[in-house]
C-alpha cells in the first residue's frame, strides 16, 4: 500500500460486490482479466488483438487491422477506463500498457467460483498465449 493514487474521486479501499459484478458483467472485460498476470504488461493494442482473435475464433495473424482497431477503441474508451476506475487494472498512459491493479486478485478469485464453460475456454485461450510467449514463440 502507499502507492500514489491517480487524480479523481476517492476510491474505496475495498471493492464492493456491486462493482465487482459490474466489472465482470461483460465478456471482453472478463477476457482482459484472464489475460493479465503479474509477469507481463500487455499494451492495449496487443490486448485488442487477443480479444478479437478469440471472438472471431481465428489466429491473430488472420485479423484485419480494422477488426483489431474496433476492439481497441472499445477497450480504450469503455472497458479499460471502467476497470481503472475500480482499481482492477492500472494503465500507464503514454505507453498504453495495462497491468493488474490492487483489486484484480479479488475479482479473479470470484470469477473462479462463478464457473461457466464458455469462460473456461476463454480463460484457457487468454492464458495460452502467455505460455507461448514465455517459451519463445
Amino acid at each position, binding site marked *: 500500500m502507499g502507492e500514489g493514487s491517480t487524480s479523481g474521486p476517492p476510491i474505496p479501499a475495498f471493492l464492493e460486490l456491486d462493482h465487482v459484478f459490474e466489472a465482470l458483467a461483460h465478456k471482453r472485460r472478463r477476457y482482459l482479466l484472464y489475460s493479465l498476470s503479474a509477469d507481463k504488461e500487455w499494451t492495449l493494442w496487443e490486448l485488442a488483438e487477443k480479444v478479437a482473435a478469440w471472438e472471431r475464433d481465428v489466429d491473430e495473424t488472420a485479423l484485419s487491422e480494422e477488426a483489431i482497431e474496433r476492439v481497441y477503441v472499445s477497450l480504450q*474508451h469503455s472497458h479499460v477506463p471502467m476497470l481503472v476506475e475500480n482499481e482492477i487494472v492500472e494503465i500507464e498512459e503514454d505507453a498504453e500498457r495495462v497491468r493488474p491493479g490492487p483489486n484484480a486478485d479479488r475479482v479473479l478469485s470470484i470469477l473462479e467460483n462463478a464457473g461457466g464453460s464458455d469462460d473456461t475456454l476463454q480463460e484457457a485461450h487468454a492464458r495460452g498465449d502467455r505460455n507461448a510467449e514465455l517459451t519463445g514463440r
Partner: protein
Amino acid sequence: MTDAPHDGDDGPRRTAEPAIDQPATQDGEWTQVAQRPNEPDEADGLTTTIVSAVADAEGVSPREVKRPPLYDVVDTAALERAFFQSETDTGDVRCLTEFEYRDYRVVVRSDGWVLVYERVDR
C-alpha cells in the same frame, strides 16, 4: 458528406438518411460533419460508432481519437440498453441523446444514427 434532407415523416428505419440539420441544443450554429449508423449486433458497437464518427470528422483513424475516454463523457452501455436493447417495441418512439466530445456536438438517435456537428465560426 451527404446533404441532410429536411425532417419529414420518415419512419425510424435504420436505412433512412439522417434528417436533422441542427443538434437539438440551440446555442449557436452548427454544421454536420460526419455520420455513422450504429452496429447493434457488434459488442460495444455504440462506443466504436461514436469514436469512429468523431474520427471521420477529424479526418483521422479511430485509434488516434484518444482523449478524453468516451467513458468519462457518456454512459454508452446505458444508451445501448435504452435505445437498442429494450424489449419494448420502440418503433413509434424516437429518443435522442446529445453531448459534447472533443469540441464536437454528438447526437445519438434511437434509429441508430450517430451524427457529429462542428460549431460554425462567425
